């Protein structure tokens, strides 16, 4: 584990005791607060055997919750991808009035409690809300229905793509785009062939995080859902209902799905980070290349 591999003392080396203590503390913390809960989820889910575990997914309500979760993510993530790209492009490559306001607005969902974001939609579209009467007259259901869930999910996941892509695009500057324009490329060609290609790893990274949050969101969704079984329950809400009913195997089985999703996200995130040099050191990218290699002429 924390076995010192090179015993040679160096200027930045602490004594073995300190190293073991530090690494041990960090590991103990990780095991206690991260690994144990994950293991517990799977242990509880499989408590009554694999049969009971799988049977809990055969429930139509469980299926409905999975489908709804996937649907909400399938709508929210692409829309936020488009919005995030457009916003990042505008913010990183252009100067305009109200730029700082836009940046602040993008961050708003991070600073607002998810419950409040859910409440906003109830206040706007609920039966007593501003648009409530009009919506009821046209038989459009937003709150306590799928559109409300999608809206709430979209709101809380707004910052993810934009926040990942803006610093990357800013670090890359606008020179390559200018070069493309001078060479005769149209605006769309420039965006597609230069801006997007250069930002692709950041975009992918943002999408992965956005997706994880979209599927795992509880607070905002809980407020607008109404908890109608088989209709407006997403996976996280489904877990809560089952747990409150003391149906532990089914609750932990559903939770284990979310845990698998989280682990897959971590893996995908690590892969993207490993694949992309820009994300590892986005700011160092523009440092001038070392000179001194012979130029053949």
């Amino acid at each position, binding site marked *: 584990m924390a076995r010192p591999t090179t015993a040679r003392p160096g200027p930045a080396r602490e004594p073995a005791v300190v190293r073991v203590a530090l690494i041990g503390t960090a590991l103990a913390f990780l095991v206690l607060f991260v690994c144990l809960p994950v293991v517990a989820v799977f242990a509880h889910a499989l408590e009554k055997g694999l049969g009971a575990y799988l049977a809990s997914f055969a429930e139509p309500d469980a299926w409905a919750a999975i489908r709804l979760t996937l649907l909400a993510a399938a709508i929210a993530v692409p829309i936020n991808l488009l919005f995030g790209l457009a916003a990042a492009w505008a913010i990183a490559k252009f100067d305009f009035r109200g730029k700082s306001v836009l940046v602040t607005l993008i961050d708003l969902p991070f600073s607002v409690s998810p419950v409040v974001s859910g409440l906003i939609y109830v206040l706007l579209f609920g039966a007593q809300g501003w648009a409530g009467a009009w919506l009821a007259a046209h038989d459009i259901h937003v709150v306590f229905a799928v559109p409300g869930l999608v809206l709430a999910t979209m709101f809380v996941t707004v910052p993810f793509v934009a926040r990942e892509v803006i610093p990357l695009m800013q670090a890359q500057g606008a*020179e*390559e785009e*200018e*070069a*493309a*324009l*001078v*060479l*005769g*490329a*149209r605006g769309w*060609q420039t965006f597609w*062939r*230069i801006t997007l*290609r*250069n930002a692709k790893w950041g975009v992918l990274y943002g999408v992965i995080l956005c997706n994880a949050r979209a599927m795992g969101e509880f607070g905002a969704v809980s407020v607008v859902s109404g908890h109608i079984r088989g209709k407006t329950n997403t996976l996280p809400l489904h877990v809560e209902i089952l747990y409150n009913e003391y149906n532990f195997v089914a609750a932990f089985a559903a939770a284990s799905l979310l845990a698998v999703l989280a682990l897959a996200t971590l893996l995908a995130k690590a892969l993207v980070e490993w694949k992309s040099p820009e994300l590892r050191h986005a700011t160092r990218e*523009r440092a*001038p*290349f070392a*000179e*001194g*290699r*012979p*130029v*053949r*002429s």
Partner: protein
Amino acid sequence: MSITVRDVSKRFGSFAAVDGVSLEVPDGELVALIGPSGSGKTTLLRIIAGLEVPDSGTILFDEHDATAQRVGARRVGFVFQHYALFRHMTVFENVAFGLRVRPRRQRLPEGAIRAKVDDLLKLVQLDWLGDHYPSQLSGGQRQRIALARALAIEPRVLLLDEPFGALDAKVRKELRRWLRRFHDELKITSVFVTHDQDEALEVADRIVVMNAGRVEQVGTPDAVYESPATPFVYDFLGSVNLFHGRVHRGRVQIGGLEVEAPEHREAQDSPAVAYVRPHDIEVERGHTGARGMAVIDVIVRHILTAGALVRLDLERTDSGGIIEAELSKERYRALDLRVGDRASVRPRAVRVFVN
């Protein structure tokens, strides 16, 4: 293709980057825009390219107004200071970019594009680097690829923004000569921005000296170096000694020295500054009166013998100011000066500006 800049101005907030500039670049010339940072030279270049829109004024390419033309339609080759190569494309694809983004009807067939890119890579002598990525190249190689990429669209004019600014001294010198040869072969109207006077003097057919958003002087390297039109140009191009004095009816009084300045015959006892290049300073051993000539007495403070010429820092005995003088090695040996020795100087050629 000639370029005409007519009364162009551009402000950034309250800062006038380019202030009423007019300029002619004749067909086939290589022109250097030179000036200190913030003098507006890069902004002017970007306005010619169409990357900036001027607040007022017009840009003409061969008598045709290009001011409202979008940047991609102007067919200019632009080489960026930091190359701006597309980092996710190979060298080959970088050069091919301008050919590939053309509308389908004007696009060359793939074979023709390949042949053309190969030709361009040969032209810049880097055909063996086609499948490399920009990050694998040295600075000088990147610069030449940037040039090949700019030439791919058969530009009508070539604009270069500090083309050698990010390179080390040796590569810089090599590329400078290479650019000059290159221009002599292609004869494409070119404008390049630089803050390096040696670069401008060595490479350009004509030099445009800019200061604070305005053009100070336009002329051949010889003309701007030998007869600067303003004190600024004198100061900016090459090192120079300043002598403060008074001018009266065509004669300038500097310390104990009197010099003819016939161009200021009307001046009535007004303060003036005389500019003298270090190589126009004549140095003699010993102080005043050796041969009864009017001179300035100095003491040798520092001697720099490295290089083709010997540079002396001489301290004036009257004002304590430092005079820089350049001598040939032979003259230096003949004078046999040491640090601390007394000497006297006399300007051979003076340019006087009345304040």
